[in-house]
């Protein structure tokens, strides 16, 4: 038994898919969280107590005391759903005094004041910040740094921003 292909049904299906696509793009744009260069994410700021900063950002997906490295005490907070790459959209780090010293943004749902997000092109990044960016060659990524301390690093691979790091030092 063969199913008749109704042109109206087909156009309805196409329009539904289109609507979902447009709606998802629009919702992503509307839901973008602000990244403040050299300061923080949303209303969370560098130097703030980690629990307060985490509450200001939203629901913490995962948090742990990371004791794997060099005997240093680091508290790590992950926000959002784990991505297919294994990263979280936003990571926040607190030191042994529970002060936030770094935010790492790995997702395009966060956008800087100048409109740069993960996935933006290198040219757009240079246009947005101009001479204020300092370029560093690297073995895998190119790093563009804005400011000294606090600073914001934009990691670029294949001419696309892959991570934005807001750090205290």
């Amino acid at each position, binding site marked *: 038994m063969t199913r008749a292909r109704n042109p109206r049904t087909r156009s309805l299906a196409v329009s539904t898919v289109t609507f979902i696509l447009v709606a998802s793009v629009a919702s992503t744009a509307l839901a973008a969280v602000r990244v403040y260069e050299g300061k923080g994410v949303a209303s969370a700021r560098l130097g703030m107590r980690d629990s307060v900063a985490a509450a200001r950002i939203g629901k913490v997906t995962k948090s742990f005391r990371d004791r794997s490295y060099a005997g240093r005490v680091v508290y790590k907070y992950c926000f959002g759903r784990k991505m297919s790459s294994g990263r979280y959209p936003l990571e926040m780090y607190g030191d042994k005094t529970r002060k936030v010293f770094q935010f790492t943004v790995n997702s395009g749902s966060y956008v800087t004041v100048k409109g740069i997000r993960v996935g933006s092109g290198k040219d757009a990044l240079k246009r947005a910040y101009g001479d204020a960016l300092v370029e560093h060659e690297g*073995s895998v990524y190119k790093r563009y740094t804005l400011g000294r301390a606090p600073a914001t690093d934009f990691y670029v691979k294949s001419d696309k921003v892959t991570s934005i790091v807001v750090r205290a030092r």
Partner: protein
Amino acid sequence: MIQTARAAVIAWAVGALVTAAFLGAPSRVCATAPEGVEAAATEPQPQRPAPRVSLASGRVVPRRLSFEVSASEPASSVVISAGGETPVHTVELSGEASWSVALDSIDLPYGPLWLAVVTRDASGTSVPRRLRLYNVGTVSDMPVSGRRVLVDKRAMRVYHVLNRRVLRSWPVAIGMPSAPTPTGTFRLGAPQPSGGAWGVLRRPLLKKSGSRWVRTSYYIHGTNEPWSIGMMASHGCVRMFNSHVREFARTVPNGTLVRIR
């Protein structure tokens, strides 16, 4: 009532299709071939043989590089490119078959790079001679003889060097600015199987204290976060890809001196 709903659905579908057509337009524009492709395809192929190049300094090079280029055929110019595309140095010649070219004034890209040397004449351009070089900035702390591991934080790369010749190099992640990787001379400990954030294995770095080498809390290790390689992401350790750290453990003997700078 049903007719009204149907009319609304049809109106919505038409609107969505118009939107789809509008959004789809740029992809059709991009489908045309970019300019210059045809020109590149018709460019004449190099005919002349590659020149011979001898490097005085080996493959680990300082910022100032000098080397000698010679060719079996006379040429009007020799062009040196670093890092792939852009010519960094052009020397005009008067038909000699042998030249000594000094790149003293050339700012070579930092880290590993490909140097390409071609000769040109009215008959065309030679096949490029490609050389793999490692610009490590300064070579004074690299021993002329013996084995050494150099961790170059600026290039975010680790080099396995024997007699000032790079046997292999791997990209690494280093410490965050708030938890930097320490600099200095260390000794490499034996590989230990590990897991989690350490990756497949880790090798401790030993620091000299008096006459003894004592363990530090820093390691060269693998990772469970491969995307972090090439970033300032660790808490002071040197991270490598798991496949690279296995190779590192296999090829670099225990006790090798490690210079981190």
